[in-house]
């Protein structure tokens, strides 16, 4: 039978699993790594759920844990304590052969946006994901990233400008490729 803590955790924290996964996916190399990250986040979150202040932003708290876990893992990799094994085989790609052309081009377009986002420096990417995708306020994003609100604002401005630039560059490149054919 689920305990009171378990029920409360499911209602408050587990409701954000998709958001956590979305951000983790864009902040890591593979879907497998993102899954591991998210699992560890919830594992840690549950253990320290009693310290979570009721009424505060649970989503921001989970994102804070996510970035901390990610930082500690990156440090472990740098110090050679952990090896990262690329697990391309685990990625769940499906090819829908029956897709009409429109869907294919829409998918290519979204892939282009993803690539542009992935190419941004990490702090800009994190700011964009937290504020523009997940809708966190600048104040909460600042807490998650451990920096002042002004820094979040400037990272967002720079990140958005860079994203726009890269999307335009890739669009003109695509046009060039089509012309060359």
């Amino acid at each position: 039978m689920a305990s009171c803590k378990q029920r409360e955790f499911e209602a408050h924290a587990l409701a954000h699993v998709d958001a956590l996964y979305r951000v983790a996916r864009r902040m890591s190399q593979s879907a497998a790594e993102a899954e591991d990250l998210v699992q560890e986040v919830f594992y840690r979150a549950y253990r320290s759920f009693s310290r979570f202040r009721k009424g505060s932003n649970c989503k921001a708290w989970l994102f804070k844990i996510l970035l901390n876990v990610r930082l500690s893992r990156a440090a472990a990799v740098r110090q050679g304590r952990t090896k990262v094994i690329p697990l391309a085989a685990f990625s769940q790609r499906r090819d829908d052969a029956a897709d009409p052309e429109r869907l294919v081009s829409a998918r290519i377009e979204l892939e282009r946006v993803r690539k542009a986002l992935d190419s941004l420096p990490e702090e800009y990417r994190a700011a964009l994901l937290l504020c523009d995708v997940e809708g966190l306020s600048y104040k909460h994003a600042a807490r998650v990233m451990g920096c002042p609100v002004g820094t979040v604002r400037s990272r967002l401005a720079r990140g958005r400008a860079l994203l726009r630039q890269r999307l335009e560059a890739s669009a003109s490149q695509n046009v060039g490729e089509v012309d060359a054919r």
Partner: protein
Amino acid sequence: MTCQETQARLADHLSGELPRRTVRRLERHLGACPACSERLEAERALRARLRQAVNETAPTALRIRIRGAIEQLEAGRSPFSGLFHGCWPRLTAAAVTAAVLAFLALSWLAAPPRIMADSVNMHRRFVSTGFMAGPTLRQVPAILAWSEQKLGYAVPRPMLPQPSPEPSNDVLAGGICPLVKQQAAYLTYSYGGRVVSLFMLRHPTHTLRGTRRVVVQGREYFVGRFKKYNAVLWEYRGTTCILVSDLQPETLLDLSVKVFPQQPDRSTTSTSLMGARVASRA
């Protein structure tokens, strides 16, 4: 408000970060300026594309694993921990926990501890849901490193011969779990289509119910039941290894011998051990 001022604030406006007064001024300008309205729409469209591009949902398997991990944490929790939750000072909680632990330790000394009935349920859970606690399957190197540090050696990734052309005996799950009130490293892998779990416990304190003692290559094994599964238990460098499966006891015993092909205290070669059969039974 000028066009330049407006355009500099569009993103903050979409994020709802502007004060109400500024919003009113900005909206007044937007109502009168088609160029700035167009910029706002472009900004909105970019954000929508961005959301759409990263819109992924967490896989069901991940949700199951998280729920499993939580259940596991709950199962491993002290029955008294609920009493301390936010009510008692931490010091009192620590003192009571210490007293309980001391009591448990004394009772363990008085009678050899038996494997908790519920612990075997974990095997079923690993098999049915792919449940993992702590490091996960995709962190097999981390599991190996952990067990090497805590147990003094890595949990062996079994190199078992396949009895039939089934999928390879690859690791299905692995991690660290609470077992018999202590930490255990485990790997669950498939063997000819059947599932086998190998647990390695830090302290050699356990016995199996109704075991029969078997000696193979001079080493003692205990064959018994681990709830509804067959199990083989043996000591290895001062720790306890338990192999659990629904395989026949003889097959499981045979596998147990092969899990550690290199016996540190014997000068036998791995080839001879791989072909070893049960030498004697008591």
